[in-house]
């Protein structure tokens, strides 16, 4: 249905429920929807399952959500980073559950969730710890693991610019998980730096068509800190 424009990030995430699965865009800090996460912390929903590439950096964004004790489980490819101390502490004290998924398989499972694919056979991870307990099949002489879709109740993503119909463009490698996450959640909320009139984004360059976006909110200006390696 039609995309709406929320006046504030708080309004945009007001209806997230306890126990929701939340897809959170970003790769490290690039593409992380800080405003929406901050609003989600204020909103108070808990017992969340978070799907994101990492498990938070430093004290801001996803790390702050974890620190606030709102997350029951993280599904990600790379939780352990130089500045993932919030997650590390929760994990080591047994206060958070972790499912590690190879990065491309994570992206593909989210895509499958949005694309109506029931499951897919993937060669990545076959014969490793991460395939334990999963169905496998040999196809064309190669071992494959059966992987199931990942869907969210909510997706929180950051894009660069939107038009009033919800068409999105991203900026550089901040694109990362946004486009697939936008297809795979019941409610998709995007924070953007700019909202322009329909027709002001060249239709050839739209990355996420508005059909996938439920709510837009203008992001607060924010200077991102660039983290170091890892």
């Amino acid at each position, binding site marked *: *249905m039609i995309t709406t424009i929320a006046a504030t990030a708080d309004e945009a995430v007001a209806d997230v429920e306890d126990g929701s699965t939340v897809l959170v865009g970003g790769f490290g800090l690039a593409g992380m929807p800080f405003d929406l996460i901050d609003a989600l912390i204020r909103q108070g929903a808990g017992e969340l399952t978070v799907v994101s590439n990492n498990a938070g950096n430093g004290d801001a964004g996803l790390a702050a959500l974890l620190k606030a004790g709102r997350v029951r489980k993280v599904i990600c490819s790379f939780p352990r980073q130089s500045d993932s101390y919030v997650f590390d502490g929760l994990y080591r004290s047994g206060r958070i559950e972790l499912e590690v998924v190879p990065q491309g398989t994570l992206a593909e499972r989210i895509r499958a969730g949005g*694309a*109506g*694919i029931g499951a897919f056979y993937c060669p990545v991870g076959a014969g490793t710890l991460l395939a334990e307990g999963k169905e496998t099949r040999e196809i064309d002489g190669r071992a494959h693991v059966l992987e199931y879709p990942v869907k969210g109740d909510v997706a929180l993503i950051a894009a660069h610019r939107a038009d009033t*119909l919800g*068409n999105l463009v991203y900026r550089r490698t901040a694109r990362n998980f946004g486009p697939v996450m936008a297809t795979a959640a019941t409610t998709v909320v995007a924070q953007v730096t700019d909202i322009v009139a329909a027709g002001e984004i060249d239709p050839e360059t*739209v990355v996420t068509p508005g*059909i996938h976006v439920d709510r837009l909110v203008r992001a607060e200006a924010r200077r991102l800190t660039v983290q170091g390696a890892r």
Partner: protein
Amino acid sequence: MTATHAAPGAGPVEHLGRGPLTTDELAARIARDIAPGSYVNLGIGQPTRIAEHLPPDAGIVLHTENGMLGMGPAADGDAIDPDLTNAGKVPVTELPGAAYFHHADSFAMMRGGHLDVCVLGAFEVSAHGDLANWHTGDPDAIPAVGGAMDLAVGAREVLVMMRLFTRDGAPKLVPVCTCPLTGSGCVSRVYTDYGVFVPGPDGVRVLETYGATVEELRELLAVDLIR
């Protein structure tokens, strides 16, 4: 038009004192049921004509499975661009806020349940909502499915637009489809010249009739019609 207005839940409205709907009236009738802000795919053929009846300010966005949202009306004259056609390969136009994407993304959108509504033509619809619209079953026919099965499975609501009877008078709303299926139990509503029907496990509920009473239709159809 003489309408017998009934309270909700009081059974079907029988529009009598008039004939069945013309194709144009049927297209307009379907258009009225499409909610503002919907994303809609209109199948090749008659459903295309529904576009003419959608209110321009309702924010309804048309999808064409060959890779576009925000499709505008058919193109004429200089507006014809061989690179811009609809799924029926008819030249069309682009509206402000359109987006182009490739075929895999377009059908992912469809199969993933992102379209609110699609409207398809049909050879037959069964009382249980099975759809047959891709193959007559004629052994000499060249099979060709296009996007029909993808639409039938993918859209949140699959509406059918068809005449209720063939030219020979045979009903197209049937107990069981005789033509090869496009999809099973996928049809939410059937809009026909003689009435609007909701197929389901307990039979076919009649929402409205045009130019005939429910009783008259009951005699012509072999399916259980529920008031």
